[in-house]
């Protein structure tokens, strides 16, 4: 469930655009006004505002934001204002250009978005970068990482709830056999994780746990430094219990010396309209402190205000 709070009466997009324009005018910038508007509009409303802004002022809202704001606050506002598909395409492209730790962003996008959403990301990627997402991912990865990531981003999983228990049993056995032989990047493992529907995968992993005594991620832990294994474990987590995955990312981002703003911003802006409620619950359960308190303690200024607004703190 989303934590985004939208007022009962939403002003017309042209009014919002006008207010935003006012926020940019003059000496400084009225950051609070920006937060009051943009952090309280859903994706469709934000798209309308961008259109209205462009019609009224002949300029892209995002460009104005880029000029007027800076640093972590800017990134949070810009990322959130983007349409979800564009945002994911942007994040994917950004991580392709970065180094290996960014494989996580690609995996996250591929595994936690719905099939339909993932395809919209691929479309948005075409439009923005004049390339296909899979060709860039394939070109910039190699070996086991490529083997896992390309099928993950190319998947168009069936989204029904039907489950075939016989298949779940046989595939749990296949996974078990491969893991016992330490063939973690075996074609069969990749096949099952990257093509089966989430419901089917869930059934398979549940059966794995029942039949073999351990959750699969426990069995995938022998070498905790192995990057590929970590990625595989997280992919499985994202496909089955995404809120636990995101809780972990947030916890690590906040507990890190300083803060990992890159990760914090990404999770908050991408999940505020999706399942932030569950992520907050998970966070509180795991850390005995609310996410609001944790973020307030770790960040400051307008960046903090933006994040808190997005996770539903305070009034509309």
């Amino acid at each position, binding site marked *: 469930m989303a934590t985004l709070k939208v007022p009962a009466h939403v002003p017309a997009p042209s009014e919002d655009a006008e207010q935003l324009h006012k926020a940019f005018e003059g000496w400084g910038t009225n950051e609070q006004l920006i937060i009051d508007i943009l952090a309280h509009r859903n994706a469709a409303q934000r798209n309308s505002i961008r259109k209205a802004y462009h019609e009224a002022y002949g300029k892209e809202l995002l460009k104005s934001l880029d000029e007027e704001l800076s640093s972590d606050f800017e990134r949070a506002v810009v990322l959130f204002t983007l349409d979800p598909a564009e945002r994911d395409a942007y994040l994917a492209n950004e991580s392709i250009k970065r180094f290996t730790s960014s494989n996580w962003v690609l995996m996250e996008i591929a595994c936690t978005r719905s099939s339909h959403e993932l*395809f919209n990301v*691929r*479309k948005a990627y*075409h439009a923005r970068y*004049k*390339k*296909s*997402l*899979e*060709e860039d991912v*394939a*070109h910039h990865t*190699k070996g086991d990482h*490529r083997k896992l990531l*390309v*099928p993950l981003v*190319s*998947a*168009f*999983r*069936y*989204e*029904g709830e*039907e489950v075939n228990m016989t298949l779940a049993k046989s595939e749990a056995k296949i996974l078990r056999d491969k893991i016992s032989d330490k063939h973690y990047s075996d*074609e069969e493992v990749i*096949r099952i994780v990257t*093509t*089966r*529907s989430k419901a089917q995968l869930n059934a398979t992993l549940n059966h794995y746990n029942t039949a073999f005594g351990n959750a699969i991620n426990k069995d995938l832990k022998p070498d905790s430094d192995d990057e590929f294994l970590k990625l595989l474990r997280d992919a499985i987590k994202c496909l089955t219990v995404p809120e636990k995955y995101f809780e972990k990312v947030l916890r690590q981002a906040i507990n890190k010396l300083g803060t990992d703003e890159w990760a914090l911003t990404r999770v908050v802006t991408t999940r505020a309209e999706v399942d932030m409620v569950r992520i907050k619950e998970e966070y509180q359960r795991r850390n005995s402190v609310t996410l609001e308190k944790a973020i307030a303690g770790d960040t400051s200024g307008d960046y903090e205000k933006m994040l808190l607004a997005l996770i539903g703190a305070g009034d509309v």
Partner: protein
Amino acid sequence: MAHPSEPEVLDQALSGIGVDEKLLVSILRKSHMRKGCSKFFCEDERQFERWNHTAIKSLKAEFKRFKDVVVLSLMHPWERDARLLKKALKKGPMQYNVIVEIACIRSSDELLGARKAYHSLFDRSIEEDLASHIQGSERKLLVALVSAYRYEGPKVKEDTARLEAKAVLNAIKNNDKRNAMEDDEVVRILTTRSKPHLKEVYEQYKKFSDKTITEDLEVELLLKETVECLCTPQTYFTRVFDAALRDDADEDAKKALTRLVATQESEEMKGVATKFEGKIKERVKGAYKDVLVGMLEK
């Protein structure tokens, strides 16, 4: 003009592709047609002319052609492709070229549509079915081909294309050590790059080899067809039409004719088809011919 004998008429109505219904109707009930028609009948020991079993089989196939082309063309293109893919998968390796054909010739959005329809029709994704049923070395290639959502703009980077042409050449040279179809780079290039880019790779390849990619891939049929469909679709269409309209064409080749004409509306395909117009009018019969000719003219 001498009246053809009934056996000759029967032969005429049933040879070629499709069935000449009008001609057949004219000789029905004429029992003499069974005499001397050794292709269709054989003398049984109990004094009657028995239908030749293989003749019945091929007769059924010929009658079916009209129905198949009508049903195929009435279906929504997405459902059509989804069903064709499912059937090809079921039939096995001999039909995997159909998977290649659909995955490579359709536009990105048409392929996406087929994948959506597949969800609706079969409650599975095409990639999960392909991946779990195909065990051989072609699995990687085929799964990746149906999963592609290629960029469709014209932009092409010559340098990258040249590098990738070299990578393909390398894989082909090492084919006896490792099947080129399983080479990571070959799969990456063929299954993710845009078609304009691949056409450029095809051109660049000629700088490094005195043969084209497809000529060098004579041994790896599936890979060759992949390259053909992606880079030189006209060559592919020509080959399919030619194989289907020959005198000794087999059933799969003839089925390809139905499939191509019913599913392809591109100018490219029609351009190739016009070259075969004479052959089509000569070899194809009856209502089936009317459908084909009608579709090609639209």
